[in-house]
């Protein structure tokens, strides 16, 4: 299996504050990889480093190419779709306009792309003209996911998808993510506080603490690990 994304000794800072102190991780093509850890560990920053939203140093290789100084717009064009914390949906625009934005980087007809997306989110086609801000939290999260998928990315960066959502909706979202992964071959790097759900969906995981990787392994290994059980799985 090919390595789609590789981070080597990546550091990131917000002004004078160092958030990541040399993070190395990898995402294989077609895999779902989870990033776990406590608040403030730098999980969101890791995703931001990949999409270029935050200043970073170190080596990031995506699909064989070094990412260099590319900002978020550049990363999108390369095939990285980042669904940020808080979804990043445009509340003032309609559902349809949000989806169309997803296709911003694509040329030519997006009809087939959108139709494909609608097979995963059928309820969206009735709500095209609805203002995105009037959707419920769960629906907005799904819209964000749909928008990311319209982009036809190779890699999906998913930041805290369960935040603020009822368990039923969260389960649904992870089900869709797994489906996209299995049927469309979409690779996923997901940051999640809910370790249980994350390890169920993912094949591989990293535990981030204070800006560094503390632990890594397959989800089975992580689930079996005692310290993980204590800290994140509530045992």
């Amino acid at each position, binding site marked *: 299996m090919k390595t789609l994304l590789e981070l080597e000794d990546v550091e990131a800072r917000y002004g004078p504050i160092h958030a990541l102190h040399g993070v190395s991780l990898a995402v294989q093509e077609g895999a779902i990889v989870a990033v776990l850890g406590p608040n403030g560990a730098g999980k969101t920053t890791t995703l931001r480093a990949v999409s270029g939203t935050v200043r970073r140093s170190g080596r990031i290789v995506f699909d064989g190419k070094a990412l260099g100084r590319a900002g*978020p*717009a550049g990363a999108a064009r390369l095939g990285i779709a980042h669904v940020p914390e808080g979804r990043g949906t*445009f509340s003032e625009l309609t559902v349809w306009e949000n989806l169309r*934005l997803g296709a*911003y980087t694509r040329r030519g007809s997006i009809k087939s792309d959108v139709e494909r997306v609608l097979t995963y989110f059928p309820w969206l086609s009735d709500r095209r003209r609805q203002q995105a801000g009037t959707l419920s939290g769960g629906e907005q999260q799904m819209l964000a996911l749909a928008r990311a998928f319209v982009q036809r990315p190779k890699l999906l960066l998913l930041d805290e998808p369960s935040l603020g959502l009822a368990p039923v909706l969260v389960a649904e979202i992870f089900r869709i993510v797994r489906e996209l992964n299995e049927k469309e071959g979409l690779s996923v790097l997901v940051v999640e506080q809910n370790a249980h759900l994350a390890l169920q969906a993912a094949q591989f995981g990293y535990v981030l603490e204070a800006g560094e990787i503390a632990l890594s392994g397959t989800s089975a290994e992580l689930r079996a690990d005692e310290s993980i059980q204590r800290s994140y799985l509530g045992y």
Partner: protein
Amino acid sequence: MPRFLSPLANVQPTVYLVVAGAVFLLVGSLDSARFASLTVGGVGVGAAYGSLALALVLIYRATHVINFAQGELAMLTTYIAYQLVQWGLSYWEAFFATLAIAFVLGTAIQVTIIRPVQHRSVIGTVIVTVGLFILIDGIASWRWGGIAYAQLPSPFGFGAWEVGGVPIQHLYAGMFGIVLASVLLVWALFRFTKIGLGMRAAALRPAAASLAGVRVDAMLALGWGFAAVLGAVAALMYEPSQFSGLTPTLMQTALVYAFAAAVLGGLESPAGALVGGLAIGVFLNMLAGYAPQVVSLEVPFAFAALLATLLIKPSGLFGQSQVQRV
């Protein structure tokens, strides 16, 4: 409310106000020829204010910056049109060439001067626009200030249609028409094109837009370009209505009225800016017609409107009320 009226529940109350105002004007015009002619003049000039106000709103929506130099930039582009006509172009050739030049100028200014400051602070950017105001004023005065009685040929002539005893000058009709056409074009651009969507997204949430692949900086530059075009339209339409013709101070009071119009309409609402401009144009013309002794208070009146709006409904007539912060 009764069921057949229920679609009206979604309509903002200020729309009623606007409709009521329009009805008032219509009734008054039918009643008195003088009222009608003042209304016509007010609508013409108000369209120019509205266009300039729209330019201000465009930039404000995208960057939360008030461009103090908008009027001066518009004035400069009008002088460029003048120069083109002097060099032999016909009015309409010069008109469209000027719009193109305005677009380029607007984008160039954003890229070279505004972009380096805009990320740092809003007030810093505003001060840069003030510096730009002074700079452009200096340049225009230096190059063309010495020309007395400069004038652009009026494309509409000075004739008028007689409608029921009321003269409707071609000039005012033309001003309104051209501004309306440009505003509609810009609106269509924003509403129906991919680039327009990108610009809207960049203005709403630059971070999220960036993640979708929108080059936010480029969108901001385009926004400035279009704003410059709207400003050029405003000035080109405004100039023939001014007795003093084309002078470097052409757009200075207009800018003040455009501010008031933009605030009145709600700084984030393009429709509001246009309606605000028309309202101010009509109001001031009425004032000049019926109460000429307070003419020197025109500007303060415009600002009283601005202040009142800011204090009573800071989001303007058409704006969305925002959550009250501490």
